[in-house]
Each structure stands twice: as C-alpha cells, then as structure tokens.
C-alpha cells in the first residue's frame, strides 16, 4: 500500500514499458525494476516539491527518425564553434557534429549503446540505464589542457502529435592534471511535448579542472529531467553552472562527491520562469575529505504562476575537517502567484568547519524602481535593469567569460520578451 502511494504517473510508466524494445540481460532487468519501482510521488522526500504526475497526460509515441529532421540552427555559446556533438531527438547526428581537429589524448564521441554503464541509483537513472542507446563521451588524457570549449547540443524533435522520450547519457572523464570546458545546450520548440531524461557521469581527476555549464532552454511543453553525478579527486576544481529557462518542468539534480583534499567545487545556477513552469534545482555537495571548499549561488526570477524549487544539501563527513562551505539561494518573485520552495540542508559531522548558508525571497525593490523611473527610465526598462542585476550576481559565478556573456544574453532575451 505504502509503495503505491510513493508512486505517481503510473499511466506514463506503463506507456514507457509498453513502447520499449525487447531488452535482454541487465537492460531488461533494469526496465523491470523501473516498472516495479515507478516514478516518485511527492510523498518521497526528495520529490516533495516537484510533482511528476502531469507526465500521465502525455501520449507517448516513438521518437522521430533524427536523420530526417531538418535542423535550422545549432546553438552555440562561442563566436566560432569548436568541437561539438549534436543530438536530435536523443539521437546522434554525425553530420552536424565536429569531432576532427582534436588533439591526441582527447576522445569526443557518441556513446555506443553497449558501452552504456548500468547505474541503477533511483528510478530515473534506472530508466536511463535500461533505455539509453545514445550519448556523449568526452575523455581528456592526463595533463592535457583542452583550449576550446566542447559543446554538447541536444535538439528536441517530435513526430506528429505524440510525445517522445529519450534517455541520453553523458560521460565526462577529465584525467589527472587535465582541463576542459563543456557547454551543454538543451533546446526545443515550444509546441513539442517530450521527455528528456538525461544522466551524466562526471569524473575529475587529481588537480584536474572542469568547467561544466548547461543551458536548459527546452520547449515550454517539455519535461527535462537531468541527473548529474560528479566525482572529484584531490585538488580538483569543478566549476559548474545551470541556467534554467525553458521546459514545463525541469529538474536538475546534481550530486558531487568531494573525495580528496584541497578540492574546490563551485556549484551554481540561475533560472527565469513564467506561466506554469516549474524549475527544480536539487544539489548535494558531499564533503568526504578535509580541506575542501564549496560555493553555491542559486538565484532566480519567478513570474506568472511559475514555481521554483531549490533543495541544496551539504554534507560534511566526520573526516572532512577544515571544510569551507558557502551557500546562497535567492528568489525574486514578480507576481502574486509566483512561488519558491527553498530547502537548504546542512548535515555537519565534523567539528572544525566553516559553513554558511542564506535563503531569501522578495519582490522588486520599490525604492529602486522609483529611483530609476525618477531619472526617466520607463517602468519596464527599469524592471529589466533590476532583474538583470539580480541574476548577474549568480551569473558572475561562471568563470568562463564567453559562456558567462552568452548565458547573460539568453537571460536578457528572456526578460526582453516579457
């Protein structure tokens, strides 16, 4: 009985299982496990604020043949696109990708189906493991610094009026002393209903550096469910940022394990949502070893009847003395119906640590609005200025200037469209 109440969107789960190809071995077992476990309802603590029930309203069909889809524009954060992998409706498009001109020691390729590792931690990961047939792999050999950012582009496409489901897998492996920048783009047309269930597994080796940025600009009828798991070794630097602008419901769940001393983890994000959108950023920063720092700044703007969720958990294990953790979560509510559910959680088991966190939610400052307008700036332009300034504080966390400028431009475009 209790199991039943912990599940939701059963109709969706049944459709997924019915549409799945015949699977054998571990994949078949994975699908069976997913069918049994179902999707978490809001009774499950980690999903308390994010309801997947609406998935039931989708009528699932097969994804379209990606080769037959015309792609007009491939988004890029760069002036001159560098290496990239392009996926359409979850399927690799070699003709749109650029994998030549890579230095020796760099592997950038589409993930072959059989290479998909089985990782069954949670129902959405299990589903991805069972059905994932495509994905992206980036491996950078020890000591190698990859100058040009690598872009992973996921473009949605649907066939007819049926919704599609795809399960891309992303594997990023930065070996000891190496450095790379990865920009993910997830884009789609507003009219298309689809479910993108993404799993990313990231490892950053000793003294390696990874800048990992993601722009989520899915169509407004899309479901974007991402689960990122990152393992960091001694002295690694991980600089990650997610910008949530699109999707009807987007959940970005990121877990990073700081499994060595001297690690610096920067886990930040921003969102701008309206209508009935839901943006969920759920993070776990797991300080397993001493002398590490983590910094997390998540800010967002909520208009219409949209709702944002921030769940930020920081664990400091008994061994992780001298941990320095900082977390800030701020939301700007632009309408009466806008809503934020913020849940910072600090679990500290070591006694010599420095951890601070803050969460605020507020409206546009009336004094600031009056001041700007008293200087002749019209109401809307004044709002755009203040919202931009608000989001900028989060966007400043992005170390790569080119990407920061691109993300800022995308956020400004969102505000300009209001």
């Amino acid at each position, binding site marked *: 009985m209790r199991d039943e109440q912990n599940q939701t969107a059963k109709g969706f789960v049944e459709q997924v299982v019915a549409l799945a190809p015949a699977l054998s071995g571990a994949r078949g077992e994975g699908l069976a496990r997913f069918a049994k476990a179902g999707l978490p309802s809001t009774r499950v603590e980690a999903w308390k604020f994010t309801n997947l029930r609406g998935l039931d309203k989708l009528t699932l069909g097969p994804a379209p043949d990606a080769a037959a889809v015309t792609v007009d524009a491939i988004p890029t954060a760069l002036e001159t696109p560098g290496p990239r992998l392009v996926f359409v409706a979850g399927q690799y498009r070699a003709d749109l990708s650029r994998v030549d001109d890579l230095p020796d020691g760099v592997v950038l390729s589409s993930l072959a189906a059989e290479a998909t590792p089985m990782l069954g931690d949670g129902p959405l990961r299990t589903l991805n493991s069972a059905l994932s047939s495509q994905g992206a792999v980036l491996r950078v050999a020890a000591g190698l610094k990859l100058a040009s950012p690598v872009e992973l582009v996921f473009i949605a496409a649907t066939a007819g009026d049926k919704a599609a489901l795809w399960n891309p897998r992303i594997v990023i492996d930065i070996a000891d002393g190496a450095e790379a920048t990865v920009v993910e783009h997830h884009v789609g047309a507003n009219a298309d209903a689809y479910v993108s269930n993404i799993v990313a597994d990231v490892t950053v080796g000793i003294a390696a550096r990874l800048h990992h940025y993601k722009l989520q600009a899915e169509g407004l009828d899309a479901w974007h469910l991402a689960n990122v798991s990152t393992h960091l070794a001694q002295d690694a630097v991980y600089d990650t940022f997610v910008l949530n602008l699109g999707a009807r419901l987007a959940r970005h769940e990121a877990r990073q394990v700081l499994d060595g001393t001297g690690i610096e983890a920067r886990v930040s994000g921003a969102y701008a949502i309206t209508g009935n959108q839901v943006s969920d950023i759920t993070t776990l920063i797991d300080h397993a070893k001493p002398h590490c720092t983590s910094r997390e700044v998540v800010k967002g703007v909520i208009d219409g009847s949209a709702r944002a969720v921030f769940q930020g958990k920081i664990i400091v294990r008994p061994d992780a003395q001298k941990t320095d953790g900082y977390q800030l979560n701020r939301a700007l509510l632009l309408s009466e119906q806008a809503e934020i559910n913020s849940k910072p959680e600090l679990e500290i088991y070591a006694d010599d640590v420095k951890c601070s966190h803050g969460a605020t939610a507020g409206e546009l400052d*009336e004094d600031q609005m009056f001041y700007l307008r*008293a*200087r002749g*700036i019209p109401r809307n332009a004044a709002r755009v*200025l203040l919202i*931009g300034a608000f989001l900028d504080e989060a966007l400043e966390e992005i170390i790569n200037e080119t990407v920061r400028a691109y993300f800022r431009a995308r956020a400004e475009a969102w505000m300009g469209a209001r």
Partner: protein
Amino acid sequence: MSLIEIKNLHATVDGKAILKGVDLTINAGEVHAIMGPNGAGKSTLSYVLAGREGYEITEGSVTFGGQDLLSMEIEERAAAGLFLAFQYPVEIPGVSNTTFLKEALNAIRKTRGEAPLDAMQFLKLIRAKAKDLSMTDDMIKRAVNVGFSGGEKKRNEALQMAVLQPKLAILDETDSGLDIDALKIVAEGVNKLRGPERGMLVITHYQRLLDYIVPDVVHVLANGRIVKSGGKDLALELEANGYAQFGVTEAA
C-alpha cells in the same frame, strides 16, 4: 514665464494630511528655497512632485511646463524635465552608474525625439561632467551609489543632474550628511546649472546650504502650508530666530 505652478495642493499619507494647501509658483531662471521644521511636509512635497507612490492628492493642482503634472507617470515627469535630487540616494547593486545614466539619458532623449547617444559619445559626456564634480572614473563605473560615502552619493546626484539637464531641479535636503568640502563641490555643480531657462527648488532645514546656493525667494513651510515668503534674508532670520514664530516647537 512660470515653470511650475502649484495651487492649493493637499496630500495625505495613510489618511493623514501632510500638505494642507501649498501654493507656489517658480518662474524660469529662479531659485526658490523652502525651509521649515521637521515634519512640515518638505520631503512629502518633493515626492509628490516627483510622483512617488503612496501619496494621495486630495485637492489642488500642479502645472509643469503647461502640462498637468499630477496625471503623469514618474518617468514622464522626468522626461518633461523634472529632476529630484534625493535626500537619501538609493543604492542599486549590480547596475553600474554608467549603464544607469545612459539608460536614463537615452530614455529622456527618446521622448524628446532625439537620437540616442552611442557608447562613445555618452562616455565622453559623462567623463567631462564627472570631472567637474571631482568624480573619478572608478566612481562612474561602480554600481549606483553602492559603497559611496554620503558626500559621494550627493555628488552622484549632482552628476545625474548635470547629465540630464532638467528644467526644474528639486534638491531635497541635499546638504544632509555633507561635510563642508563636499557641500561646496555639490553647490558648485548646482550653481553651474543655474540659467535663464532653468528653475530650482532647494529644500533645506538649515540656512548653511543657502550660503552656497543663493536663492531668489525663500519660503517657510510649516504644518503643510507655506506660511511666509521673502528674499534671501528670510533664511538668515530663520537661522537666528528659529521656527517658533510659526507656532512650531522643535525638539532640541
């Protein structure tokens, strides 16, 4: 020709009457000072003219440049040439002074049917104006009023005034929080803007500011009304005798 004509202006805040029939006319080229005790309604008058929300006009009219000022939006008043130098300039983190002033100037130019200044033209203008006020490049690049001292904030107000070139400048307690050197710089900036087309309304509690910005007319505002008007000597008289003669007792 009259620049602004305030007639029998009544205003309330949260149902409480603050302005109880203000009459005031300022002609182009004139500098008027309004003096008065705390609570007389000085700041209310400046906010009502600038269009701040939270004030209810219960009676009276204000004509500015031939238009009904009270029916205009805040930004329309600014575009029409009204400028309020704030007693407490607002800090705006994340918006640079340059961006702020460029947006403001170009918005105002747009309503006047003038082409916007490009980044280079604007930078040249703002640098020249900032130099007059002994403001550094760093100050014009920083976020609006963030980390500014009291004096720097008031200089920033003077800079905005110099860039926007209003027809009527209302200076609300510009001297508060200023040491004498800062006061001189700001007053000098204000005096530079005096001219035959421009009017000024200087609101102050103390006579000190009026040593540097010498008014043509001085008014006493007490209990929501102008109770006395005179020449610049009236300010000196008030300094000597206080406001008690107007039935107001001030806490020491």
